[in-house]
């Protein structure tokens, strides 16, 4: 392990670098290219894991672990939470609205990168005295020593910072109820007053043999009712419309009973065809 931290880098590390480096870059590109926020988050997580490995490779064992735990563990999860929370319009079009913004961004980005690389290039970074003796007593212990001696002040301040952040987050997100919550009576009265849809909303899944929340209930004629499912789900397009399927199965049932009653078998293929199209609809419903 200490060898890893030494100045002379093994060829193994080189291989590791070249492979994982490519992965990291791909992850980064994915982050900025992917259409859905979720995918961006995932690819970013990938990059971070790679970076964690690189930390380890550079002798920052503690950081490597922290990277995985805190970043990929905590922060990315936080991201995903928010994405889920906000994710309704998460799929934003990559079409540029600001004029010339994209070209400017590309140009500046490339120029900046070139500048940085040039800077690194002409910086004299030849000699490497590795972390051999720095990590002598163990990386974590030495870090701890530094944090609690040399950087103790900054450390305390970061503590304060974190507290502040927590409070801030609470203040920002916690919404104070300004008006008194309306009692059930009042709500019902209001519903009567506005007159449309007086009874409570119908539950989903009724009359269909499912009772999952994402399946609209069917009206007597078998068509699905919008009212029965949560609008958020509808908006996300995560409703499974089983109307067609259930109708087909109804038909198949009648067919079977007729068969069983020994009626004319002039229409054999129907149930198979209907049964054949049902799963397709099912899939579509799921995909929608």
């Amino acid at each position, binding site marked *: 392990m200490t060898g890893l931290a030494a100045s002379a880098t093994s060829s193994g590390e080189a291989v590791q670098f070249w492979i994982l480096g490519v992965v990291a*870059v791909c992850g980064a590109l994915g*982050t900025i290219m992917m259409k859905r926020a979720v995918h961006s988050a995932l690819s970013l997580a990938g990059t971070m894991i790679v970076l964690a490995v690189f930390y380890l490779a550079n002798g920052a064992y503690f950081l490597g672990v922290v990277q995985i735990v805190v970043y990929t563990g905590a*922060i990315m999860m936080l991201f995903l939470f928010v994405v889920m929370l906000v994710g309704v319009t998460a799929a934003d079009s990559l079409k540029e609205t600001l004029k010339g913004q994209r070209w400017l*961004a590309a140009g500046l980005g490339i120029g900046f990168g070139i500048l*940085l690389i040039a800077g690194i290039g002409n910086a004299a970074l030849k000699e490497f005295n590795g972390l051999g003796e*720095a990590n002598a007593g163990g*990386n974590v212990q030495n*870090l701890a020593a530094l944090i609690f001696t040399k950087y103790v002040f900054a450390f305390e301040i970061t503590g304060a*910072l974190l507290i502040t952040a927590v409070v801030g987050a609470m203040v920002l*997100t916690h919404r104070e109820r300004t008006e008194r919550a309306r009692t059930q009576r009042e709500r019902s009265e209001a519903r009567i007053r506005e007159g449309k849809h007086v009874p409570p909303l119908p539950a989903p899944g009724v009359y269909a043999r499912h009772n999952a929340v994402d399946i609209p209930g069917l009206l007597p004629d078998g068509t699905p009712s919008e009212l029965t499912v949560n609008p958020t789900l509808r908006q996300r397009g995560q409703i499974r419309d089983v109307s067609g399927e259930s109708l087909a199965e109804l038909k198949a049932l009648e067919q079977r009973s007729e068969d069983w009653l020994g009626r004319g078998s002039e229409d054999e293929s129907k149930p198979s065809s209907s049964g054949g199209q049902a799963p397709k609809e099912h899939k579509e419903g799921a995909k929608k």
Partner: protein
Amino acid sequence: MNPVYYLYLAALLFTIGAAGVLIRRNAIVVFMCIELMLNACNLAFVVFSRMHGNLDGQIIAFFTMVVAAAEVVVGLAIIVSIFRTRHTASVDDASLMKL
């Protein structure tokens, strides 16, 4: 192999992140890109600490992580509250200095 390549990689990631900040309109993704930039910096710090043979770089990277965590918390909170009022997370829509 010369660890300077790590630095090149860091620069590359940083640039990509910056470009992302400029290009993406979704606030969350913008935040991610910022995280990406921070991470690039961290990588550079770690590599530097290896170069100089002392742990200060790592310490800085450590602090950076803490700050990044705090920043994400607050930032995301802000995004959520904006989303509540505007029903959108696009940074372009938040072009006025009022909610």
